[in-house]
């Protein structure tokens, strides 16, 4: 596979975020919410760690990522530029990969300022680097998987609001699925827990980098990627 076309599309989408107010609004909202959750408990626990921040991250990303990705296909379908895009010499998988990577890169850029939380924690106490590194790696993987889900939701409809809600439902389900399991028999519980994104994110953000968790996020992204490519090819 040639990566030139996906990367060109990714660059275009990413710079598209920053030439309109979307990027600045989303990043501001994200930083305000996560900043508040981080600092409101930081001095209470009197421990140099980012647990409060990472604990809440899957839930916050469930809202933020679909808001970022909702326009990626819906807007093109709505304005008709989709026809132009698909008659350029690009394949459906080039287009989907480019857009998905743009979403993931946006999440990475959005997370970058939160490194200052880690820095401030390290300044006031002795910060254990393991959970921080694991947490950021997990956050990037989670961002990739949620972006893929959001891009899939966006390919279903030409209405951005619908795309946002569908994406939100997918991401929230993945995040919260293991919170509703108390009434199920135990063997089923662990199977369903394994499907939840939050479970894997918790593992990885403890600083234990297990290949199973990485495989989980990558396969989630792959499934959504394939589904989106199918959606584009089925438009006929």
């Amino acid at each position, binding site marked *: 596979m040639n990566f030139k076309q996906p990367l060109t*599309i990714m660059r275009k989408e990413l710079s*598209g975020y920053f030439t309109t107010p979307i990027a600045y609004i989303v990043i501001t909202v994200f930083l305000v919410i996560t900043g508040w959750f981080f600092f409101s408990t930081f001095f209470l626990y009197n421990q140099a760690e980012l647990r409060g921040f990472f604990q809440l991250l899957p839930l916050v990303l469930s809202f933020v990522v679909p808001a970022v990705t909702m326009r990626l296909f819906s807007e093109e379908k709505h*304005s*008709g530029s989709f*026809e132009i895009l698909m*008659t350029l010499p690009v*394949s459906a998988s080039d287009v989907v990969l480019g857009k998905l990577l743009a979403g993931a890169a946006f999440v990475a850029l959005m997370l970058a300022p939160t490194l200052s939380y880690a820095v401030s924690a390290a300044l006031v106490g002795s910060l254990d680097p393991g959970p921080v590194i694991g947490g950021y790696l997990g956050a990037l993987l989670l961002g990739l998987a949620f972006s893929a889900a959001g891009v899939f939701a966006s390919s279903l409809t030409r209405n951005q609001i619908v795309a946002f809600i569908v994406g939100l439902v997918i991401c929230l389900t993945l995040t919260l699925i293991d919170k509703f399991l108390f009434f199920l028999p135990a063997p089923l519980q662990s199977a369903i827990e394994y499907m939840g994104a939050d479970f894997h994110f918790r593992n990885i953000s403890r600083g234990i980098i297990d290949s199973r968790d990485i495989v989980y996020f990558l396969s989630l992204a792959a499934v959504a990627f394939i589904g989106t490519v199918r959606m584009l090819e089925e438009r006929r």
Partner: protein
Amino acid sequence: MISVNNVSKFYGDFRAVNDISFVIRRGEITGLLGPNGAGKTTTLRMLTCYLPPDAGRISVGDHLVDAEPLEVKRMIGYLPESAPLYADMMVRDYLSYVGSLRGVDDDSRLHDIAAMCGIGEVMHKNIGELSKGYRQRVGLAHAMMHDPEILILDEPTSGLDPNQIVEIRKLIKEIGKKKTVILSTHILSEVEATCDRVIIIDHGRIVADSRTAELKSAAGGAMRLTVRAKGADFSLLTSRLADIPGVQSVEPLDDAEGLAAAAVRGEGGADIRPAVFAAVRDSGWELYEMATERETLEHVFRRLTRGGEDEL
């Protein structure tokens, strides 16, 4: 260059394109002409690999559209109807984006294409801020960015003012000297003004396919007269005129002044004017008007796309 063999396309039960076949040769400007909803856009979308045909074969150059879509897309420059470009992108950024997807992202090409399409002064504006005429030109620039062998334009002049239409047509003619151009339109004068060849489609079928000049001369033989006379009632007028040798048909026309009026069509090259005048004079009516027009492409189009009835 392009060959379309027995191609059909369905939307559910609706047959948008019904078993059409045609061949487009290198270096021609071909007009795809038809009323709205005839299947022009669907046909173009199949040529450009946006929609796959449900039946039949389309090949562009040596490539089949469903087997090698990327090769086909590389050969074609396509501008969809009403140029749906990214509104919040700057013209320059947009063209260099298209250029890099097309593999031609050098600045000199960007400069040349901007000069050719006359968009040099709007390169730093957002596409959404442009007037319709400029947007259409940016669309043309987008389609010609990679200097394609085939240029496909869907209703390139729709929504433009008369001056812009003339400019765009001039540009298309200029391009057509070197390239193969296919454009769709429902405006006849556009075909007469720009195209070497015309394919008329209606209800998804091809009803005519010939050189523009041939179609015109085929149409040009017949003569139409509009006759208005006082003192006659319509049925009498019709029967008298229909009796004249060389008259093919007589149809009623409305008249605001209370005159009897009819449209008379002659056969072939016959000049029916003296006989019509004589018929009116001999009946004792007063002839108020007798206007002549040669049959134009417009009449041919109406006849072909309305199942034979000519209602002008």
